């Protein structure tokens, strides 16, 4: 699959990443290599293979509906780039 610079722009917009102009071509080439690998997989005959969503044979991992104490707020906020002691602060986001 050909990864164009337009597609790189689209994916970076979706993931809110700003790529410097100079890196786009290199990024397109790298993404293409990754996506090309899917072609290798697509070459296999999977007609008799069930779709798989999880690798490990584990199911129904559930917990009881019992309240546990939440975390100390200061500790939660301590890793945030910005906070006002109560809330996480981020650049203004408007829909």
């Amino acid at each position, binding site marked *: 699959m050909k990864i164009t610079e337009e597609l790189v722009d689209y994916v970076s917009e979706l993931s809110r990443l700003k790529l410097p102009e100079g890196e786009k071509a290199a990024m397109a080439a790298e993404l293409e290599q990754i996506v090309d690998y899917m072609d290798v997989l697509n070459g296999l005959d999977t007609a008799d293979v069930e779709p798989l969503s999880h690798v*490990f044979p584990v199911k129904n991992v559930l917990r009881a509906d019992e309240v546990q104490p939440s975390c100390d*707020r200061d500790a939660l906020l301590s890793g945030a780039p910005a906070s006002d002691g109560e809330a996480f602060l981020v650049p203004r986001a408007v829909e």
Partner: protein
Amino acid sequence: MTWETVIGLETHVELATKTKIFCSCTTQFGGAPNTHCCPVCTGMPGALPVLNQQVVELAVKAGLALNCAITRSSRFDRKNYFYPDLPKAYQISQLYAPIARDGAVDIGEGKTIRIHEMHMEEDAGKLVHDPWLDQTRADYNRCGVPLIEIVTEPDFRSAEEVISYLEKLKETLQYLGVSDCKMQEGSLRCDVNLSVRPMGSQELGTRTEMKNLNSFKAISRAIQYEARRQIELIEEGKRVVQETRRWDENKDATYAMRSKENAQDYRYFPEPDIPPLELSEEYLERLRAQQPELAQAKRARYQADWGLPAYDTEMITSQKALADFFEAVVALGAAPKQAANWIMGEVLGALSAHGLEARDMALTPPTLARLIQLVMEGRLNRNTAVKVFEAVFETDGDVDEYVKAHGLEQVSDAGLVTQVVEQVLSANAKSVADYRAGKEKAFGFLVGQVMRALKGQASPAVVNRVLREKLQEHIEDPAIENSP
């Protein structure tokens, strides 16, 4: 040209669990910002979400009640989007194998709304934008609160049908105990997909989506506004643009959200942190057996077993707590119609005066049952009983104690009543003569005089009986006629 409005709904319902969907933080409404949070619901690296079993149970119960096929092998998916209301940069939801599919809701008058699918997912946090500081404050208390999203087919043709469906949905989910459906707290909110087409056409027009409507009034007005807007556009020769629009309650209009937001590409993929859910037939059978009696069935039973009018049954089942209260009062021996009258009159009146819902009231069934019993036994008259009710309603006070303390027990002692009746008759010869002449009004006047003499505490039944008897005697006794 005549136009037809076509509507489909996506309804988000907050589940009534104690904890969040993937962590053990409380789901309690309110709370200081970020105090109901942990590494899982704030999306810290390395945190492992674990599914709450109660979420699955409530979702299955809702699916069964909405006549859905429950997916025996269900999975979660990652919905990727970058917005600060979800700190993980994705929402754990269900796309490929939602918990329930293909349901149907009967909304009355022969109309059925098909349910396309129902899935489980997590709620997002609350953002408060500060235009002055050019900042957004993020509070993740609500982040991770469990939701079910119920998606209908485009089966609605009017705002009225939408409201009927939502009322039915709300009633059903409340009866199931799946959700409290408090719209003012955001426990039930709707996205409305709407398009218009010429009447008779089978093709769907271009639709718009209106997001997060959280009152019946807003939903109804937004639908009416948006349908008219689309019809006007088409009649002017313009076309409807597929977009997300926001309803502005204050301006009574919808407006387009930034078109950039419409470039929605969530890149769904299977959620690796949550292993698949395999539901056994035994599990589903157990939940099926636990399904409570829903409002519609209760209404039918009240009519069939107790002969209550349809109107009464509607009123009583309007809140599950009220129906439960009613049944408990009847189980304690009250006559169903008596209990119904008290609940529709005094109980609903007091609830509305205090701004309460039935589930929040202090009054207990034994208190009302006792009050009804005292009236039935002729020991309290109805008007006095209402006063007692008002006195005990707020704190579930002791009826007998109150009656005793205020000397309210009514006079059923026929001897005392007879004595008073005789006094009243001798003092009101004119009324006695009027009654004899066939004026029934005079009887009412005499009842009033007797009641007054007994300070309103006499049993009306006893007063009526004694008075009729005595008046009859007087008619047969001409001596009275000549007395002054």
